[in-house]
């Protein structure tokens, strides 16, 4: 795996350099803007060690000697706390990577510049909105302003141990009913009624995972005006009841601590889970011995397809000193061949439509038994929706997660837990 991964990145690098050499100045990232952009661009990045930005920025610096990039690495929590304070204090970086769940609070406080000003609606010479899915375009706007350009995306699909499913003669589940049966048939328990000790399905009590069932059941967290919580309506209650039934009737294991998930996969206690594309990289790095055993399928659907949509956005904060050069770099990072680093370096999913068509992303992946798992996430993205863009999302998220936890622990009914969550959400909305 390591060798082929290395070969893949060398191949991509070669083709990137070849393309850079072949392309004319007008169609290289940024096009005409490159003539006016110069100076220093300060970049704040939360990606961590496996960041795809570093490799891209090195190539950018070679192609654009007139622009100096001051790259500064942060961890996720530090960037979350420092970015708003720095922008408010007039010490904003020129470009930053931010989690899409931060967008509402940052944008509501006027910290994100309108990219429409600097881009004129164009990305690398083509209309920007044509280069993203509808859901992504919607997620990139706040209050009518283009506040971010999606760099990588997160939408959920079903990861499962194909070797176990095949050995037990279970079909890949496509609907909620089939899913309960499949998890029950796959899980192994020491005795009837005991929690699965092998090949269970990880049921995670957080808003991300609950939303998967909520959206698939046609439900929403807030009403369309973002004025009132509707999570406690029938669709939401049914979704939470279904989630609980995965524990009581299916082969679900209650798994509240995401940080121990990879240990559960390694010990084979977990044989199925629902998560985003970044888990492909986590699996390969964390459990290389299970190479060839895993596969990815669309998450089994209820009433309709649906997933939460998240990821990483590139933002140019208000008060950025060199927004022209920052947009130049942003365009570079969003070129398809540069977006490939999101996959090769970080094991995550690049966000632009063109990047999703890259041969490297549609190639069969030996870790996933020769499957090309990216297409599954690409399809999931097409029907994914972002969380409501309200400034107090943190409080609403916490209230829903507590409600879900309470039900999965058998403390109260789905209706009562979601009524409490809705009440907290309405208070947070100022109602």
């Amino acid at each position, binding site marked *: 795996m390591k060798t082929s991964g290395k070969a893949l990145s060398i191949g991509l690098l070669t083709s990137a350099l070849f393309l850079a050499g072949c392309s004319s100045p007008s169609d290289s990232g940024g096009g005409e803007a490159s003539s006016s952009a110069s100076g220093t661009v300060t970049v704040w990045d939360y990606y961590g060690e496996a960041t795809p930005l570093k490799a891209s920025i090195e190539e950018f610096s070679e192609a654009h000697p007139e622009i100096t990039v001051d790259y500064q690495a942060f961890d996720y929590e530090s960037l*979350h*706390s420092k970015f*708003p*304070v720095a*922008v*408010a204090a007039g010490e904003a970086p020129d470009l930053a990577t931010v989690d899409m769940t931060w967008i509402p*609070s940052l944008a509501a*406080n*006027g*910290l994100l510049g309108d990219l429409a000003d600097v881009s004129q609606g164009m990305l690398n010479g083509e209309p920007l909105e044509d280069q993203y899915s509808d859901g992504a375009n919607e997620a990139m706007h706040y209050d009518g302003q283009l506040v971010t350009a999606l760099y990588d995306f997160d939408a959920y699909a079903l990861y499962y141990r194909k070797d176990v499913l095949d050995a037990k003669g279970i079909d890949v589940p496509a609907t909620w009913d089939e899913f309960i049966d499949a998890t029950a048939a796959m899980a192994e328990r020491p005795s009837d009624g005991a929690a699965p000790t092998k090949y269970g399905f990880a049921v995670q*009590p957080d808003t991300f995972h609950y939303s998967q069932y909520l959206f698939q059941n046609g439900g929403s967290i807030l009403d369309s005006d973002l004025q009132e919580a509707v999570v406690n309506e029938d669709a939401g209650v049914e979704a939470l009841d279904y989630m609980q039934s995965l524990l009581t009737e299916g082969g679900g294991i*209650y798994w*509240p*601590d995401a940080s*121990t998930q990879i240990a559960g996969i390694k010990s084979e206690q977990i044989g199925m889970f629902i998560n985003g594309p970044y888990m492909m990289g986590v699996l390969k790095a964390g459990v290389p011995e299970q190479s060839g055993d895993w596969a990815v399928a669309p998450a089994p659907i209820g009433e309709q397809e649906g997933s939460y949509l998240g990821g990483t956005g590139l933002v140019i904060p208000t008060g950025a000193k060199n927004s022209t050069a920052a947009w130049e770099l942003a365009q570079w990072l969003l070129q398809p061949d540069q977006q490939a680093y999101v996959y090769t370096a970080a094991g995550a999913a690049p966000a632009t439509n063109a990047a999703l068509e890259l041969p490297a992303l549609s190639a069969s992946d030996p870790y996933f038994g020769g499957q090309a798992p990216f297409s599954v996430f690409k399809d999931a993205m097409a029907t994914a929706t972002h969380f409501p863009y309200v400034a*107090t999302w*943190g*409080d609403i998220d*916490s209230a829903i997660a*507590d409600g879900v*936890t*309470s039900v999965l*622990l058998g*403390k109260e009914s789905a209706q009562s837990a979601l009524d409490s969550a809705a009440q907290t959400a309405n208070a947070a909305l100022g109602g």
Partner: protein
Amino acid sequence: MARISSAPREVRRPSRTAGRSGQGKVALPLVAPAMILTAVFFFVPMILSLVWSFTTYNGMIPATWNGVTNYTDLASDSVFRTAIWNTAVYAVVTLAIGPALGLGTALLLNRGVRAQGVFRSIFFLPVTLSLVVVGTMWKVLLADDGFINQCLALVGVQGPSWLNDPSTSLLAVSLASVWAGFGFETVIFLAALQGVPRDLYEAAALDGAGRYRSFRAVTMPALRPTLVFVYVVGIIGSLQVYDQMYVMTRGGPLKSTTTIVYYLMERFQRFDLGTASAAAYVLVVVLALLSAVQLKLARRNS
């Protein structure tokens, strides 16, 4: 006599004054860096935080004055009330067990145990560990199929899901904290015990006091200042508990391990600096009151 006794005073007074002003000239530049740093990094943030507690400040847009709304909101916030309750339970559990365990261990070690230094180091070792390390270690030990539950299974008991069950999570985190901290109390009590004059015990023995009687009449009174110190430091520490909760449970499940400091950190992370500052000042007032009561009680007893 009068002349002799007053003479040195007259001589000393001017010399002391001259010395003070001379020392002052030298001292001021020497202490200035520390004073400036303390003012900038301690007093200024304290005052700013007090001001913020009366505003809607979120660190991003200018603050708006909102009077005591943050404080009244806190009073009506069920999560904050839960945080106060959890903090109180944590303080009671850790302060009931920790010092008692520390004193017990110190008494055992004080009985001329061989290799006393080695045992003292062993008991003190957890205190030197980072709370993040301690928290991570106990998280592994307390996992559903972790060492603790495996031991319980050996004697036919099915252990609970310690950290995932709201009814056991706070107790589990509290006990892990006791393990991490009681070595400090052991060392402090041991030092105090070794400072009790031997002749007091001999006198008590001559008066016919048994082991229990000399513990009550000699050891405990001698340990009183140490006990006050241990409890004052212990209460301040336990009311400020945060690290263990962050590492082991993230304040959950269902807010069962959300403490006051965890609550205010969460408010800070959501950029609700006004409420976070108000919560911090509630904690400061509670700590000041408790410490004052403790010191007063200690003075009355002595």
